C-alpha cells in the first residue's frame, strides 16, 4: 500500500460559494469539486452510486452535497477508482469509531468488487479529512489493495489536531 498526505482546499468555503450543504459527517466529493462553478456541474465517480447505497444499508450517515440526481463518470477499467471520501472534524474528534466502521464497509465493498477476479487488484482513491475546527484539511491519496484500506484508520485518526 502507498499513500501520500498533502494539504487540501477549504471544503466549507467552497460549499458556501456553491451554495451547497456543508458536510458534517461522511460525504463523497465530486471529482470536479475544486473547479465546479455550480452544483449542476458536479460529476462523481460512478462508484459513489453503490457506495451511497452500501453506507445507507449499514446505517452510516452520509451528507449529500446536492439534491437530485447528479452526473457520474464511468470508466471501463478493471481497477477500482473510487471517489474522494470526506471525513468531517466532528467525526474525527467525537465519533472516530465511525471512521473505522466506514472504512471497514468501504474495504468490504471493494473486496467484493474484486471477488472472483484473478487479475491485479488495484485500488485508487482519496480521503479528505477536516483536521481542525478552524477548517484545515488534509488529503490522503491512497493506492494499494482492498485490504490496505482498513489500515488507513490509524493514519486518519493521527491527523486529529484537536
Amino acid at each position, binding site marked *: 500500500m502507498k499513500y501520500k498526505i498533502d494539504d487540501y482546499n477549504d471544503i466549507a468555503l467552497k460549499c458556501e460559494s456553491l451554495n451547497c450543504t456543508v458536510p458534517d459527517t461522511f460525504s463523497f466529493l465530486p471529482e470536479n469539486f475544486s473547479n465546479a462553478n455550480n452544483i449542476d456541474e458536479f*460529476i462523481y465517480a460512478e462508484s459513489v452510486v453503490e457506495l*451511497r447505497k452500501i453506507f445507507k444499508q449499514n446505517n452510516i450517515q452520509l451528507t449529500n452535497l446536492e439534491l437530485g440526481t447528479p*452526473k457520474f463518470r464511468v470508466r*471501463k*477499467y*478493471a481497477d477500482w477508482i473510487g471517489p474522494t471520501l470526506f471525513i468531517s472534524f466532528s467525526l474525527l474528534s467525537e465519533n472516530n469509531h465511525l471512521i473505522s466502521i466506514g472504512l471497514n464497509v468501504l474495504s468490504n465493498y471493494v473486496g467484493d468488487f474484486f471477488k*472472483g477476479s484473478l*487479475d491485479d487488484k488495484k485500488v485508487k482513491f482519496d480521503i479528505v479529512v477536516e483536521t481542525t475546527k478552524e477548517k484545515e484539511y488534509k488529503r490522503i491519496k491512497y493506492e494499494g489493495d482492498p485490504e490496505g484500506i482498513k489500515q488507513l484508520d490509524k493514519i486518519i485518526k493521527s491527523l486529529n489536531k484537536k
Partner: protein
Amino acid sequence: MNLFPNLTGTLSDFNKVVNESQNKAIFTRGVEIQKEEVKALRNYLNELEKVKSESIKRGNEKDANLILCLQFSVKAIEKELLMLINLKEDKMDEAWDCLVESQNLIQNVIKNHPLGGEYLLGYASRLKGYEKLLFPKMMFSSAGTIIKNSECSICNGEYSECDHIKGTFYMGKMCQRIIKEIDELEEISTVENPDDKRCRAKAIIDRSTDGVEYETDLLTLRTKTLQPTKQNTKPSKCEPAH
C-alpha cells in the same frame, strides 16, 4: 445440514451434468462431441429455468439465487466448450469472446454464491490459464463517459435512487445498470486492465509506400489488403509482444 432442502435433486443432477460436460471441455475431445454437449447444456438450462420459476413462485429468494448460480456455471462451461470449438474451427475472435464471457459468468457466480463460491476459484484459474497459454498479450480499450440517467434492471427505477446493487442477485435475477442517457463521451483510452476484455485492439492497419493499406489481425497475424488492387497477402510486419 442441508441448506437447500427443496433443491437436493436439482443439485445432484447439476453435479452429474457438470462432471459430464467438463470431461468434454478438453481440447483433445472430438469437436462433434463438444457440439452435442453444447446442445445438451442448452436443454439443461431450460430445465433449470423451470426449477427457478418454481422457487420464484414460492417466493424463495435463496433457492432462486442458487439456481441462477447454477445457470451461470452451466453457461460458463457452454462458453468454454464454444471457445474450444471456435479454436478448432479457426474462429479466433469468437473463441476469445467466449472465453471472456465464461470468465465473467464464473466471476459473477463466485461473487454471489450463497456458500461463498471460493471452490470455483480453481475453475476460474483454469479459464485464466487458457488466456495466458492460448492467446497473445493484448491491448484493450476503455471508454470514459459521463452519464446522466440510468435504470435498474430489477425495479426499473432510477439506478442511483433505488437500493439494488449492480452485479448482485435478487430473486433469481442479476441486477444490471442500464444506461439511459449519456451526457458526454470523454475519452477512449488504451489500457492493459480493462473492465471488458472483449473491447480489444483487433488489427493494425499498415500503409505501404505505394499507398496500399494492409490490415493485420492481431490474433492470427493474417494480413489482408484493404484496397483490391494488390495481391491479398503479404508477410506481416507486426507481431504483438508477449
